[in-house]
């Protein structure tokens, strides 16, 4: 096995680097910049039961070392995604993770079932943590019982491994992680964005049309590292770590905290080549810090 390879439920990855959901569309745009085949995996933009337009614009605002977004889960609906986007990504032999979102348990179930019927999707990422949709998502992501419920239903609706994407907007992330692990989650994705806001001084109004948005970028990395580190101590299932990764040292830090793979989000906007660059730099970074492989580094921040 190569030094970069990692095996997670449903995902045999030649390296641990993937673009994060919502920051990469369905890959088409970035396929103009480089060969997606290089990626460890790809996480698609969220799919809901039917077509969603999302929030009004402005949908993004810049903050110190980060950005706020309130896209509002805009997507063409799961059927259209399966018809037009999954086949495009299936041209590349990399694991495809479908991000499943919904407003009701029935919608999550329906979306999960639809992806289960395709041959090309290798795992589901359960989106119970989008802070930008009033009626759904986040309500499942801030209550351990509801998070467990939706996990059970999605597990029953499909044979695919399920990674539950946890929200950082909770007081006790460990109890959320334990609840979804007990409910059958195969892995965790963490973290989603932190709920935030910015007010535009000249107009004295919030910049985002949705008023609040999800904070991402380097600003949230310490929060993500802390949460991955805490959760790693209490669960057995693997973690895909994300939150503010913008250089190869950040990747190593997430591995040390306990992540088995990482997703890169906002940094794609600054540098469309960030993912392949990180993949190229990772072997040197591993040896610089004394690791033989990615597997060797996972969780090493927790001591002997």
């Amino acid at each position, binding site marked *: 096995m190569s030094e970069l390879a990692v095996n997670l439920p449903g995902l045999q990855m030649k390296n641990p680097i993937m673009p994060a959901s919502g920051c*990469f*569309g369905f890959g088409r*745009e*970035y396929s103009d910049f480089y060969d997606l085949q290089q990626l460890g995996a790809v996480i698609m933009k969220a799919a809901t039961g039917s077509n969603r337009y999302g929030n009004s614009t402005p949908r*993004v605002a810049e903050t110190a070392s980060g950005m706020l977004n309130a*896209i509002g889960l805009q997507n*063409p609906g799961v059927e259209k995604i399966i018809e037009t986007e999954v086949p495009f990504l299936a041209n590349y032999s990399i694991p495809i993770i479908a991000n499943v979102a919904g407003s009701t348990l029935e919608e999550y179930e329906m979306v999960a079932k639809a992806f289960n019927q395709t041959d090309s999707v290798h795992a589901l990422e359960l989106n119970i943590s989008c802070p930008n949709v009033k009626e759904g998502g986040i309500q499942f992501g801030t209550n351990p019982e509801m998070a467990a419920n939706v996990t059970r239903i999605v597990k029953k609706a499909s044979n695919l491994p399920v990674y539950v994407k946890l929200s950082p907007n909770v007081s006790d992330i460990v109890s959320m992680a334990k609840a979804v692990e007990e409910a059958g989650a195969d892995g965790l994705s963490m973290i989603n964005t932190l709920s935030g806001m910015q007010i535009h001084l000249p107009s004295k109004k919030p910049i985002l049309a949705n008023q609040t948005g999800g904070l991402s970028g380097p600003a949230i990395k310490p929060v993500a590292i802390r949460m991955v580190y805490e959760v790693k101590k209490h669960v057995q299932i693997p973690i895909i770590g994300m939150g503010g990764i913008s250089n190869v040292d950040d990747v190593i830090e997430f591995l040390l905290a306990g992540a088995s793979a990482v997703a890169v989000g906002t940094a794609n*906007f600054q540098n469309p080549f960030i993912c392949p660059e990180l993949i190229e730099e990772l072997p040197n970074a591993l040896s610089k810090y004394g690791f033989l492989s990615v597997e060797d580094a996972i969780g090493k921040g927790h001591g002997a």
Partner: protein
Amino acid sequence: MIRKENLLIVKSTEIARETTEMVLQNQHISRTAQPGQFLHIGIEGHTLRRPISIAKIDKKNETVTVLFKQLGEGTKALSNYQEGMQISALGPSGNGFPYDNLLNKTILLVGGGIGIPPLYCLGKELAAEGVTIKAVLGFQTADSVFYEAAFKELGETLITTNDGSYGHHGFVTDVIGKMGDYDCYYTCGPMAMLQAVTTKLEHQSGYVSLEERMGCGVGACFACVIPTETQGGYRKICKDGPVFAANEVKL
């Protein structure tokens, strides 16, 4: 095709109130850019790139010129960049203005503030091809006026200012009626102006160039969308635009 390129700052000048004109040297961008396209410019210490439209393309000297208003911290920082420094940009981005079959025809350019530069790029290109150019340019005040002489070289040009400190007092829509006949219009500027212009000229064939806060700038993040009657209910300004047929989008 969009590439990530470094551009050399050849010249940077404040040409009007809080308005910077920057001449940037880069072979790929100067060779491939079209009027109406933009650069997604990275600024040290800022997470998001800034979309800035192209005002001049000089293939011979391999430069493009951009203008931007010093509106926030990012554009203020960019205005402090010195000649000789390099900036990173994705570009040329987006689709430019369509302009087929305009030989011997007349076009009207309607610009507001920092929406004016891409129209200059188009007007210059088309004037060289024998198209008759007319222009109405709106500014807030006398000290924010730029490119007046440059537009007058292309054709008949009227200037308006909101406060009446220069040119005609009022908005561009107050003087559009004075411009006579034309075959097609192109407009870029603040949303309220675009709404007024497209309403006033609804029986004319025209194109609008739109601006919105962008995330990725390449079509992946869905931040800069505009509602439409067709195409699944929305279009992406960064990738499908920034230029659209005036009747295609709901402003």
